[in-house]
């Protein structure tokens, strides 16, 4: 599994209130949520994002509320992966549970710039910045989480376990 796209660059402590403001949480429609994704810190995100694009951020990405609407909005907007130095724990869980690819990689988080073209090989954790001609290696997921992701999220994983 691979991803390739242009980078939207954000910094530390991107909270779930700016990913999807609570004023839009009166719906759980992914398309409607995506139409407001990131608008409180980046008015242009929604108009500029293309399928496959990548978010690169600093520490503690997704801090704040437990709203699963945040990773849902990002996924629905077309983002193929979020790379950050660290993720807030509920966001991390939610992203895995709904099948939004996320990678922790402090070096990539530090070097990759807005607009760079980046390619990711999820099987090896290799991140290539094609614009800067740099390579980074992300922390692999523990086997349990790899199983969750490969089954397409928590619900499918549990249904399969139940069937065993």
């Amino acid at each position, binding site marked *: 599994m691979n991803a390739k796209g242009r980078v939207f660059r954000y910094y530390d*402590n991107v*909270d779930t*209130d*700016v990913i999807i*403001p*609570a*004023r839009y*949480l*009166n*719906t*759980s429609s992914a398309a409607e949520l995506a139409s407001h994704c990131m608008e*409180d*810190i980046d008015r242009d995100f929604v108009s500029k994002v293309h399928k496959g694009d990548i978010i690169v951020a600093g*520490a*503690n990405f997704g*801090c*704040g*509320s*437990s*709203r*699963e*609407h945040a*990773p*849902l909005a990002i996924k629905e907007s077309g983002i193929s992966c979020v790379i950050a130095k*660290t993720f*807030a*724990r*509920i966001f991390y*869980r*939610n992203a895995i*549970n*709904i099948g939004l690819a996320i990678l922790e990689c402090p070096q990539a988080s530090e070097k990759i710039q807005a607009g760079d073209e980046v390619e990711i090989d999820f099987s090896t954790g290799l991140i290539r910045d094609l614009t800067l001609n740099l390579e980074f290696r992300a922390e692999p997921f*523990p086997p*349990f989480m790899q199983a969750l992701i490969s089954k397409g*999220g*928590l*619900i499918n994983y*549990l*249904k399969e376990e*139940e069937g065993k």
Partner: protein
Amino acid sequence: MGMTSTEKILASAAGLDEVHAGQLIMAKLSLVLGNDITSPVAIEEFKKFSLDRVFDKDKVALVPDHFAPNKDIKAAQQCKCMRTFAHDMDITNYFEVGQMGVEHALLPEKGLVTAGDVVIGADSHTCTYGALGAFSTGVGSTDMAAGMATGKAWFKVPSAIKFNLTGSFRPFVSGKDLILHIIGMIGVDGALYKTMEFAGPGVASLSMDDRFTVCNMAIEAGGKNGIFPVDEKTIAYLKEAGAGEPRIFTSDEDAVYERVYDIDLGQIESTVSFPHLPENTHTVSQCPEIRIDQVVIGSCTNGRLSDLEAAAAILKGRHIASGLRCLIIPATQKIYRDAMKEGLFDIFLDAGCVISTPTCGPCLGGYMGILAEGERCVSTTNRNFVGRMGHVKSEVYLASPAVAAASAVMGKIADPAKLD
């Protein structure tokens, strides 16, 4: 190797003799919680299991509190979705408007959580119940759905940071000042993925309401859970609430902590978090003059009876500043009634405040008290992110009920100890 109280609770729930930080476990759940924002997403996921019942109808709690009483048509649809599900699944602990309250004040009050429990809630402030010696943590809607279906959740056992408390608070200082001080000290990711364990002789001096407030904001330091030891005050609280028999897990002497902080409660000052992160703390005595437009006193952090009493003690015989709005939001119906019986409502009304039915509304910029461009609010809530309470160019300053009330009187951030 010794275990922390959190490790012991998780080991027990996973049916293991011992667990340690980093271990992945599957734990049995004592309670699964959702609200009107997170439950509709969870209900859609739950349907994928094709089940006609939840794992235990007494162990799911559904509370319409965020956008309820319904703020608009879409919110009404979401509340209806949850209400229908609660009815179809015969959920015991569904709390309709009229019985409901802000979930993290309501569940302990109703005796739904006891010491030793493992609780997940699709709300980040589910960590509040650590005040009762339970392991409780916030999750997303998919985890909530899986919890309702299976009665289990996976966890990575967290490592721990200990806060060794000594002494007692000075007048006008409270649990809110303590937790804001800690977040200022360690940062909004200072406890990322970790347990924040509060211990030491100073614990005895903290009221249960203070402990709820402290654990409530563990998530604001990135924590997985906050937890207090169980003492006489905890037992008395649980008994009065009619909670289940407490199972008391005590941290071993040789339990492993990544860091230990010693905090003298007597040195904590009234503290305010400036926009736009809870870690941007200043003591009130250091605050420059900051004029404000609104004050909110309420929420799962500070909407309990002692919070309203602290605010009323300041507002008694005083009036809020001209041109300012002050919203008082008792967190549950019981708190509402108790505050009314104690005569606090007269004090608030005489001071020019408005009193609302329980709701999370303003805390997350949902409704009731939304801020316009350039407006500033001192709030006893828990987050001051960009746009949290309204316009993207509005500002939220987090503070205790005493500081919020003093600020309402002065029309600017003010020290309750220095009012005339």
